[in-house]
């Protein structure tokens, strides 16, 4: 069964069906989007995941493989270009696909009350769904790039057309920033195309250039296996007087760092979140940011492992800066949504710290951090949405004593906040623990300097400060209907739809906090092998 293709193209079928539907009629579009996203989730749980596990038990690196020759054209004397339709996953990709299919139905439910132009909205939604799954399993660089780019378009329109008052500004900014990242990636892709050949198709007369990532990653004993001698990304090639591979690493890293986002290329994120409608924020924080983290590991670290070793110190530094800067700025926010956005930046800093540790524990923890942060930030943005739906205000100072007014909502907010600040018993603790475990181990073994994880832990304290301040301000104290007298009636406790969204997320957060091996056991082997191999190859290549 082509599991991955089914997962990717299912939304496309829905999209095409929707395109011929009537303009009016919300029900049809909502329900079909929900059914499609639930089908994906069920498919992953019932079919793809068991198949994945069976294949994983048999050994190997990439599972659920589908590979066809897709585009091939001749370059005359230079040779031939062969682009594959190559889908496969390992622990890294599969865990993020699982995350996507978990978040997707919740985002659809969260869009239930959408007022206008439901048809267009859900069409874009399906397009986004397609791209997000595609990006996590495409192993051909060209295919990856297509999905990556196509993600931009629906997101741009979803923010720009359904967003808040300054949506045009925010969506434009989002677009420009991520476009810059894509352009970087395109440059590298073209360089890569002319640097690697396909060993299966190559003959003595004909060079077959490829964008297959597994060919680019292949190396042994400090030699790249499929590289064209003297090409731009061969070992030792220089560009503008610097090592071309290291330069490519930096350029790609910046591209993905914009997506993650990393300080100082993060300013699109708070604006995009503030203007985006709730479900779009959920997708943005829950999945789209993870594409940046995935790209760093799969593309930057995977294809240029020598760069990963060489720039370990800088990646760690940027991670620590993101952690502290994000947390400090979050503390100063007055808008609840901006606060959560900056806390996302801070938490993605933990991801960078984890991957920079170059230890199996730290890198696996960093991937798990993507997973847990996906669930938790989705929940936090839903929490913000609950408030905003009722009174169209998110200013923290305007709320007081909500605990008595909305006790059940307070309960879920408490779970969300404490999960996000890394309380044991909730999912994020485990990932942060692993990240710091890796970072400290790296520090002891002479990788990162000891002060990096030490300063990073300050982010945990700052997290407690800004979340508790916010919680105290909004939920503690007495509700004061002074100039907001109409609020009291509006601020009702959760309704059924909100329960349906929050309850599964909260349950998952607690379950994964108490029993982390539930998820980690599935993917840890494959992620760990990937990380270990990457580090080893990187060392060899760099020493060569």
């Amino acid at each position, binding site marked *: 069964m082509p599991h991955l293709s089914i997962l990717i193209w299912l939304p496309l079928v829905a999209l095409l069906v929707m395109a011929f539907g009537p303009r009016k009629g919300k029900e049809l579009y909502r329900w079909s989007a929900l059914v499609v996203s639930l089908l994906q989730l069920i498919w992953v749980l019932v079919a793809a995941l068991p198949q994945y596990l069976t294949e994983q038990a048999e050994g190997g690196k990439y599972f659920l493989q589908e590979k066809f020759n897709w585009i091939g054209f001749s370059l005359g004397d230079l040779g031939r270009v062969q682009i594959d339709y190559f889908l496969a996953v390992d622990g890294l990709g599969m865990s993020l696909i699982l995350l996507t299919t978990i978040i997707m139905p919740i985002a659809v439910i969260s869009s239930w009350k959408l007022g206008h132009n439901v048809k267009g909205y859900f069409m874009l939604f399906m397009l986004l769904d397609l791209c997000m799954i595609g990006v996590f399993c495409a192993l051909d660089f060209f295919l990856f790039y297509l999905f990556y780019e196509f993600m931009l378009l629906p997101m741009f329109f979803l923010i720009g057309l359904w967003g808040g008052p300054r949506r045009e500004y925010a969506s434009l900014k989002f677009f420009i920033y991520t476009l810059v990242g894509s*352009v970087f990636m395109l440059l590298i892709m073209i360089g890569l195309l002319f640097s690697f050949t396909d060993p299966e198709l190559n003959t003595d007369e004909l060079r077959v250039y490829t964008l297959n990532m597994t060919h680019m990653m292949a190396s042994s004993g400090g030699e790249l296996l499929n590289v064209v001698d003297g090409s731009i990304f061969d070992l030792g090639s220089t560009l503008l007087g610097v090592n071309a591979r290291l330069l490519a690493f930096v350029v790609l890293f910046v591209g993905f760092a914009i997506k993650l986002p990393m300080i100082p290329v993060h300013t699109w994120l708070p604006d995009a979140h503030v203007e985006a409608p709730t479900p779009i924020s959920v997708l943005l924080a829950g999945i789209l940011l993870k594409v940046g983290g995935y790209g760093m590991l799969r593309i930057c670290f995977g294809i240029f492992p020598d760069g990963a070793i060489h720039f370990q110190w800088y990646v760690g530094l940027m991670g620590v800066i993101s952690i502290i800067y994000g947390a400090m700025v979050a503390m100063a926010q007055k808008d609840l949504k901006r606060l959560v956005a900056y806390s996302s930046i801070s938490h993605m800093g933990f991801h960078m710290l984890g991957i920079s540790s170059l230890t199996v524990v730290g890198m696996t923890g960093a991937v798990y951090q993507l997973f847990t942060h996906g669930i938790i930030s989705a929940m936090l943005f839903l929490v913000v949405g609950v408030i905003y739906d009722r009174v169209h205000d998110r200013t923290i100072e305007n709320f007081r004593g909500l605990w008595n007014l909305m006790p059940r909502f307070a309960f879920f907010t408490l779970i969300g906040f404490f999960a996000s600040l890394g309380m044991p018993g909730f999912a994020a603790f485990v990932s942060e623990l692993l990240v710091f475990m890796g970072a400290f181990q790296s520090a002891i073994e002479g990788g990162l300097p000891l002060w990096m994880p030490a300063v990073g832990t300050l982010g945990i304290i700052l997290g407690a400060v800004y979340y*508790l301040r916010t919680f105290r301000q909004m939920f503690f104290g007495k509700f004061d209907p002074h100039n907001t007298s109409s609020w009291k009636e509006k601020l009702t406790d959760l309704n059924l739809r909100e329960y349906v969204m929050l309850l599964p997320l909260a349950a998952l957060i607690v379950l994964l906090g108490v029993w982390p091996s539930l998820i980690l056991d599935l993917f840890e082997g494959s992620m760990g092998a990937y990380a270990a191999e990457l580090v080893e190859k990187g060392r060899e290549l760099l020493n060569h």
Partner: protein
Amino acid sequence: MVLAFGMAILQCLWGWESPIHKQFTWLEFSHGEFPLKLTGGIYLDKLSLALLALVTGISSLVLLFSQVYMDGERHLDRYWAYLSFFVFSMLGIVLSDNLLFVFIFWELVGLSSYLLIGFWFEKEAASKASQKAFVLNRIGDVLFLSGMLIIHSQCHTLDIEELITFAGNAESLSESSQDLLSLGGLLLIGGAIGKSAQFPLQVWLPDAMEGPTPVSSLIHAATMVAAGVYLLARYHFLLGLEAQMVILVIGALTSIMAALAAAAQWDIKKVLAYSTLSQLGYMMIGLGLGAWSMALFHLFTHAFFKCALFLVAGVIIHENHTGHPDSKQDIPPENDMRLMGNLRRKFPWLFRLYLPPMLALAGLPLFSGFLSKDGIILASFEWASNMKGNAWLIPTTALITSYLTAFYIGRQAMLVFGGPDRDMAEKHPLSWKMLLPIGILSIFSLSFIFSINPLDGEHSWLLESFSTLFGDAGHREPPFFELILAASILLPFLGLGRAYFLYRNGFSERSFPGFNLLSTHFFQDWVYENIFAKIILFLSNLLDWLDRNIVEGFFTLFSRITVNKSPETDSLGELSELSDKGIDQGLDKLGHLLGPSLATLSSRIDHSFIDGLVNGLVGLFRGAGKRTDQSQKNGIQAYLTGIVLSLLFMLGFIFWIIFK
């Protein structure tokens, strides 16, 4: 809870002699140089069994007491839920067999404490106190976490038995890894400082008194705050000599500072809170001296008598809770000792039950507090006699503190139960549910429960069983043994006497010099709130400003250069108007917008890029947002220009790569 206590006792009888150790695997990684294996499990030996009995026993009593105290409160379901959650987490700390799970439950205890302090969250003070407690605890916790991870990176295990083995072979390690191990031990102290409220993180504990009084007695006097002492004693083999020295100094400093502060409080609960700090300081001194079992012994005796004192205060607050118009300061009137007096007459039984724990705290012979306190003082003298330099400061501090302790508790007794009548509270019988727990705790404040000889704690059954565990038994006989013993007996009497003469006529406004300094605990809070907190807030606002204006500025500059206009203005305006008409129409319209733009692009690149660069720079100097150039209005063109520019750049790059 009573059931749990019963089980704990049974377990004690059954497993007292041989430790039980059961494990399960929590997380396991198969790859990497050092495969990661994190286990969870329980470890039962004499220490954890004794604490198990202590926690469940005191919890049962406090829950019984709460039934009356909390009667009629709103949201009682939450109260019981939080308390049960607390007991669960506390037992987790006691039973866990490894540092990681101790840490997990450690933080959960912090969470339950946060919820309980903030139980009356409508009160501003309570909500602030809960936040403060959590954040200060978190600082300690983060140190604990770092220490734990450093230890893990050295030993690749966190299990107590494996750690003992590892620490036993520490000599065979290289110098740098020994250094790291002792750094890890040093950082563990951070955790204990947070949870056991030691200098400099101790300021949360007095504020934590905003919680309901039974909570204060259970969590903030008897059990949770003792967790730090328990942690350090249990993992004492990780502590090096420097670490012990640090503990010693911190303990001594905390104990004397808090004892001084306690002497200048008017709030009945605050006295006890500072007293708890001071007594925890004593335990820390014990740990610092290496007298592990003595510190734990003090933990036990203290848990009983301090819990009893808090419950007595709870009764008084409960009975006074009618509200009194004459509130002197920001102290709630029912807590204000200046408004109390001669309660001995109104609640004679309460007074009788109050005496044993009070005298135990003062440290008089025949009461439990004397045994453990005296043990620590003797140990400190013995330690000082082996050291040089300023070592004598520690035992002196301990002695002065013991005088001060007797003074402040005597002062409290005189203010509350002695002196002239005041018209607080009606005389009426108290509920047995309140008196029974206090009575039981009072009995446990007597010395014969722990030791037959009222002057000698060294042969107490509890202490001896701990000693066999830690192997630190032995008769302590420092030089001038009799003299020290006499001083440690006499000083409490002096303190009590001084309190009696000062307050026999009830409260007087006449205070001693430096009262203000003491009552604010040396302005420590003031410094934290007005200096540290302000600095952090300032930094946070500064960074936020930078983020909005400088980091953001790059984007504005970039867009101004390429687009020749600020993106702030209406750019997608036309598109958004269309949104209601359907996305397909919008896309049509987009095509229309793009068509002409593409046609004029080539000329525009000249204009908008080159001109824009110049204009942008000029505009930057002229100040933002003053542009009047309306020639380029459509924002879609902004990114189109961007795309085209990048495409050109890219094409150049490709050509260069191919034909270089």
